[in-house]
């Protein structure tokens, strides 16, 4: 065989993946990296979930039975850090990696080597963070918000926490740069901005939020580091600093951060509902503008997390009004989804079930959010289980539900196999019933006066805590079942068609086979 022929064959078939472990270490393929992100996120979801199980087991009844209060605080802190930075954010980045190039007709991400690096930082960051569990003084225990001065009492874990956060920030910013560069430069001819699927749009906006706020967060924790080790006094009143300054900086990052965790979810839901309603998304352009408005407003509402720190009246009023405004664009999204369903021809496969549950339960989280925005009543809600219920409704039945819906929706495209529909439905009902048993009673607990982040409580809170714990164990078990479903689908299952779903639209369903080949869109598709 001549060299020329060999070369031709080589060109025709393109590169398959390398064999063995090194494929995953060296890979620059957006699909491989997407898979790595998603599997890593699933592992972290179980890891952080295990911590939640410890929390709920200790809170099963009044009195301290299982752990020390200090360890309890470590669990609440680590649970949040791992779920936010290890489970939810990497899952969305994984979905972005898999889907954005396929949705805009690009062969890969714009910066593939940096893509590899952004992923591989994560396991090291979480190794640093998790190692603190075995250190003198234990893991960080001051809450994921790491308020000064309490966080400065952390033991040996402190510098490890800060450096882990720096690494996570670097990873997120690189991921965001990559997504923006891809969307700006790699769209197929004819794929104008206002033709992009909403998942691409929401991620585009999310990426800007990440670039804007992750450095702020890095700055805040670096100030903590120098306060602790280098004698600065940014957050110490004794040295002329201000502990509340930390909270302002943190929440200037923290509020956009919570939208970083929900905007891509809006994109996913906007993909799934039209497919199963067999009707185009209602109000596409208003959805884009609503997303942009939410992102903009996210920068001017941060102090609603701090209504009790003693701000002047004018400050409290400004942040109350600004926060209430967010209900308008969020409402527009909900109304658009309901209008998309209206007069459609709906079927209720597992992704649709999770998407519909998202709409209902996320809206409930939105209602409690609106209640929390009202400053005078927030004085009663603040730092109680009402807040815990609120952010778990928006993060678990919001963000996590959208990720699960996305997994069921696109897994057949990725693997070429349909998941088991009965198993998916069991997983849905089991999760949805248990998650409400878990979190709905927490509204009652908060209103009745139970503060958050306490390892033990007064006996009048006993009943609802027990109910909540039972829901928690059931929900945790349901997610183990989900892991099994994912495993079975990767291993085998009914062959998926190229379109996968009867009503599915978009380049990944209409222009690519299932499973998607290792390299797709090496020549740009025609956009109608």
């Amino acid at each position, binding site marked *: 065989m001549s060299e020329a022929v060999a070369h031709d064959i080589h060109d025709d078939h393109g590169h398959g993946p390398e064999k063995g472990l090194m494929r995953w270490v060296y890979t620059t393929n957006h699909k491989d990296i997407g898979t790595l992100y998603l599997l890593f996120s699933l592992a972290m979801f179980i890891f952080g979930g295990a911590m939640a199980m410890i929390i709920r087991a200790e809170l099963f009844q009044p009195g301290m039975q299982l752990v020390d209060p200090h360890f309890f605080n470590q669990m609440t802190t680590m649970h949040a850090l791992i779920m936010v930075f290890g489970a939810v954010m990497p899952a969305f980045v994984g979905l972005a990696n898999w889907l954005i190039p396929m949705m805009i007709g690009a062969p890969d991400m714009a910066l593939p080597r940096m893509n590899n690096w952004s992923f591989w930082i994560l396991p090291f960051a979480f190794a640093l963070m998790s190692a603190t569990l075995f250190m003198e003084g234990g893991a960080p225990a*001051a809450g994921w918000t790491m308020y000064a001065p309490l966080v400065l009492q952390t033991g040996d874990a402190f510098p490890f926490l800060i450096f882990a956060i720096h690494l996570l920030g670097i990873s997120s910013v690189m991921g965001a740069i990559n997504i923006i560069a891809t969307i700006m430069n790699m769209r197929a001819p004819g794929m104008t901005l206002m033709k992009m699927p909403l998942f691409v749009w929401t991620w585009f906006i999310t990426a800007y939020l990440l670039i804007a706020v992750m450095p702020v967060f890095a700055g805040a924790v670096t100030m903590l580091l120098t306060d602790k080790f280098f004698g600065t006094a940014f957050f110490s*009143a004794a040295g002329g600093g201000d502990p509340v300054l930390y909270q302002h900086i943190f929440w200037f990052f923290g509020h956009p951060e919570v939208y970083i965790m929900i905007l891509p979810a809006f994109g996913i839901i906007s993909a799934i509902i039209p497919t199963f309603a067999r009707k185009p998304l209602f*109000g*596409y352009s208003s959805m884009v503008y609503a997303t942009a408005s939410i992102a903009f407003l996210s920068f001017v509402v941060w102090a609603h997390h701090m209504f009790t720190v003693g701000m002047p009246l004018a400050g409290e009023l400004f942040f109350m009004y600004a926060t209430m405004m967010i209900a308008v664009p969020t409402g527009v999204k909900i109304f658009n989804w309901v209008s998309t369903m*209206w007069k459609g021809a709906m079927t209720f496969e597992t992704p649709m079930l999770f998407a519909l549950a998202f709409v209902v339960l996320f809206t409930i989280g939105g209602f409690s959010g609106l209640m929390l925005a009202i400053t005078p009543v927030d004085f009663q809600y603040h730092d109680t289980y009402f807040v815990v219920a609120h952010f778990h409704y928006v993060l678990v039945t919001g963000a996590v539900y959208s990720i699960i819906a996305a997994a069921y929706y696109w897994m057949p495209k990725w693997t070429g196999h349909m998941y088991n529909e009965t198993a998916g439905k069991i997983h849905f009902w089991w999760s949805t019933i248990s998650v409400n048993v878990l979190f709905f009673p927490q509204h009652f607990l908060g209103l009745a006066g139970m503060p958050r982040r306490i390892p033990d409580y007064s006996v009048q809170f006993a009943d609802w805590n027990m109910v909540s714990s039972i829901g928690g164990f059931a929900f945790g078990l349901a997610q183990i079942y989900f892991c099994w479903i994912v495993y079975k689908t990767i291993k085998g299952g009914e062959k998926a068609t190229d379109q996968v779903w009867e009503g599915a639209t978009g380049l990944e369903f209409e222009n690519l086979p299932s499973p998607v080949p290792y390299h797709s869109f090496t020549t740009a598709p025609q956009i109608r």
Partner: protein
Amino acid sequence: MTMVRRINGFIVVATVTMMAGMQSALAGYMDTLNMTRGVTPVSERVYDLHMLILWICIIIGIVVFGAMFYSMVKHRKSRGAVPATFHESTRMEIIWTIVPFLILVGMAVPATKTLIFMTDTTEPDMTVKITGHQWKWEYEYLDGAAEGVRFISSLSADSRKAVYADPESVDNYLLDVDNEVVLPVGKKIHFVLTASDVIHAWWVPELGQKQDAIPGFINELWTEIRKPGVYRGQCAELCGRDHGFMPIVVRAVAEEEFTAWAADKKGIGKETEVTDKIWTIDDLYARGEEVYNTACIGCHQLNGMGLPPTFPAINGSVIATGPVAGHMDIILNGRPGTAMVAYKDQLDDVDIAAVITYQRNAWDNKVGDHVLPADVKAMR
């Protein structure tokens, strides 16, 4: 006819009684479901605002979810629905932007009024300073009948013992303290809040407000309690290991009772106890154990082993087994830059002498000496 009337009457009475019974049972249960209406002008307004917004949310929820579920039932493929093709309507988008905005304005008006009312701390009848410590509250009456009264309020020993035993066995588990804050009813009371170590938050739900206590800064709060009674709350800002174990108990009493309490609190003749009473090591040890179990236990633990590295062990420590002077110094003056605060203003001479004696002789510390209240007085 009369028979029928009597039966009717019976049914009416029975129904009314049953409904009243159900209502009171439900009312008792509602306490575990909803926010308290509280006992202050602020808490009542806050409760009304809370209910207003809750009902608005419920009504919006019924409309939106109603439309959604109607669509899910009617517009399903299995019923032979054929999908429509409409996908935008500028008029609808404008309507569902403007209408929610107007509803929000409707909420913002009462919210703003309530907030302005709540933040008006002018012209108080008396002022109480609240200081948060890890993990107890300190109260100081700055003016009025109780001017100068100052004490520390920690979790009651009963509750603390029940944590690892049987929480059901004590009254007001985790919501009980050794020293209650006593306040007069019907007076505008101004609180100023600060903290000595980390941020805490002072919250009694029945008073309708919560405010952070921040080291180095002063926050304000006011209340006017309408009904005599005991109102319980907790620290609401994560402040370390025993955040869940620093309750707040407010006892609201009539003004005469408050004046009597203040006089009693001021007039305690500690002086004679210090100089005249003959203290034995056993007396001091017993009293010291009590003091230790409310003042020190949070950090240094029941077994004296502390929580290194932040809270060092006392059992076997160089200080507690070394010279008495050094031991007294650290308790009186604290250790700046660490979590160990100065206790000279928090405990009296007898308590300090007692707790030092206890620490030097408890666990494996068998030093065998003791400290007299007069020694502590001399060291101050």
